[in-house]
């Protein structure tokens, strides 16, 4: 009997477990949402038809199946509310990701160049905000940004402004909230690639006549691109579907897709359209997800 046989079973289970997880908690719920997206609204409980009832036999099921249609997806294209929401989500996600990169890269770069012992401290500082609930932190920002909030008080005391500035319910407040919340997700992958960088590469660049600035742009930056990609996608993907931050900090005149979804579900009670919007959102996020996966894989290979 080889050792192989003994380990075979738990090992096989370990290999299956993630797939099981995916099926149970992603594919099955997604199946529900997909089905609802193909249904029609109804004033009923649940608020859509048809409802699959497995106790009524095969014929009834087939009839119910025949009622499914793609009409809701058609509506998504016709009503520009949805297209505008998607577009706004994309604009917000792209803009936020760029701001996050501009702020996160220098921080990660600085962290990676700290003495070893201080790197751990810096890492801690980046992670510490996670110890407080995300919602509480956003509410804290509301407090700071409101009419008589901390920010306006400071600005008034320092005579930088003469009257309180409207911060809350603006795009600026929303971007502030998003950048603040997602910064660690940008910094950590960047830091991971930058801290692994071989210092002798920069010395070699210097030795071959590159000034420190040239060495950064010719060596450090291109080699950190996998980290840039990982950080950007890690932020971009959830920001597209972000709901809480725009809902609490932004104005209500233009909505992100997450907010539109919420409205459809809870205010309009139109589950099928909301589901269709959710499915469409998911499909839109597939390409960046695939890209992210490929980047990760390439980096894994490069590290081998």
């Amino acid at each position: 009997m080889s050792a192989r046989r003994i380990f075979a079973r738990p090992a096989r289970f370990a290999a299956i477990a993630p797939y099981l997880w995916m099926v149970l908690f992603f594919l099955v719920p997604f199946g529900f949402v997909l089905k609802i997206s193909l249904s029609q609204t109804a004033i009923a409980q649940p608020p859509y038809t048809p409802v699959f009832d497995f106790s009524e036999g095969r014929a009834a099921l087939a009839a119910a199946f025949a009622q499914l249609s793609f009409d809701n997806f058609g509506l998504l294209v016709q009503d520009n509310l949805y297209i505008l929401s998607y577009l706004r989500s994309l604009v917000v996600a792209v803009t936020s990701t760029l701001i996050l990169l501009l702020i996160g890269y220098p921080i990660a770069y600085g962290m990676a160049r700290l003495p070893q012992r201080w790197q751990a401290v810096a890492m801690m500082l980046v992670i510490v905000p996670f110890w407080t609930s995300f919602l509480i932190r956003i509410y804290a920002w509301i407090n700071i940004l409101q009419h008589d909030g901390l920010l306006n008080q400071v600005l008034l005391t320092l005579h930088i402004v003469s009257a309180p500035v409207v911060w809350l319910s603006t795009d600026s407040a929303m971007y502030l909230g998003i950048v603040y919340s997602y910064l660690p997700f940008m910094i950590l992958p960047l830091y991971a690639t930058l801290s692994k960088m071989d210092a002798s590469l920069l010395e070699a660049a210097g030795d071959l006549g590159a000034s420190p600035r040239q060495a950064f742009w010719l060596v450090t930056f291109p080699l950190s691109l996998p980290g840039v990609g990982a950080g950007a996608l890690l932020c971009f993907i959830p920001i597209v579907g972000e709901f809480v931050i725009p809902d609490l900090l932004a104005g209500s005149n233009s909505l992100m897709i997450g907010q539109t979804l919420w409205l459809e579900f809870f205010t309009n009670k139109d589950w099928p359209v909301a589901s269709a919007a959710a499915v469409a959102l998911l499909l839109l996020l597939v390409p960046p997800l695939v890209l992210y996966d490929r980047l990760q894989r390439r980096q894994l290979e490069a590290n081998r």
Partner: protein
Amino acid sequence: MPLLRIEGVAKSFGNFRAVDKLSLDIRAGEFFALLGPSGCGKTTLLRMLAGFETPDEGRILLGGSDIAQVLPHERPVNMMFQNYALFPHLSVRDNIAFGLKRAGMARKDIATRVAEMVALVKLEGLEKRKPDQLSGGQRQRVALARSLARRPQVLLLDEPLAALDKKLRESTQGELMELQRRLGMTFIIVTHDQEEAMTMAGRIGVMDAGRLVQVATPRNLYEAPASRWIAEFVGDINLFNGQVTARDRGRLTVSTTEAGTLAVSELWPPVTKEAVSVAIRPEKVKLSRRAPASDAGASQPINRLEGVVIDVNYLGGITSYRVKLETGAVVRSSMANTARLDVDAYLAGQRVVAWFTADDCLVLEQ
């Protein structure tokens, strides 16, 4: 005026004095090796020549001007790194062209020079490969080509062959020497491998604890080490401690506890202390079954030590023996296996006489 003059250079890291007021001249076109155990400061010295470290004191004169404070990218020297430090995102061609582009060379000239370098290190056909698609030996060649491409006044090589296996290392040593001769460039190599230093370099500087303890040709380093430490560091050696009891026209008589009274020739400069070590390289100790004939016909005295063979190590080209003397001391001897069928080989347990001439001995202060 030498090409490179290092004058009283010192460098400390915290309390650790890595390089201690070191001075050294290196001539143009020389192949110079810095040899020493790890932590002796040889790499720090090399890094100061490259500009990665700034000396705390002293001057580094290259062609007469002090470059001690000049930044690495503004120095006419290039370095080949121990781990090669090839840019992983650039092809072989772009790695080699990196330094040329920084120098603002014209596109056409870069292409010509890169092709020249690729041919020089025999990498034709691999120009488009990335470093991770190359073998260790090929990477080493790219690193060499990249550091040579700018035609530096001095090429610094930090343990350039350490990552290669023995066979490849030996053939590469030959190629490096050939290259250096052909280009007429000044090479300074850092190594902890004395065989490598001896094979390639015209002169070797031995470093210990941040100081240069001897600068000599490989032959002088081996045959006339300046101190006991160097004698032991470079190659194998038998050492017997003793007292000088008589001096007579360049001949010393040394009385040792382990090997009795030995006759040795004195080196220049003469030893001044009475407490000395007599040193003899194993290959200069011959073994025979009976003591060689008396000194009568010989031009110099012969030392004879009787003992028993306790250990025989057949190494192919040579066989090394360990002979235990009556005093308990062990003498090592190695003899070339000049015949395929050696009827004269000694076996463990055999009584032998280990003998050597006075001229083959070194006398070193303790």
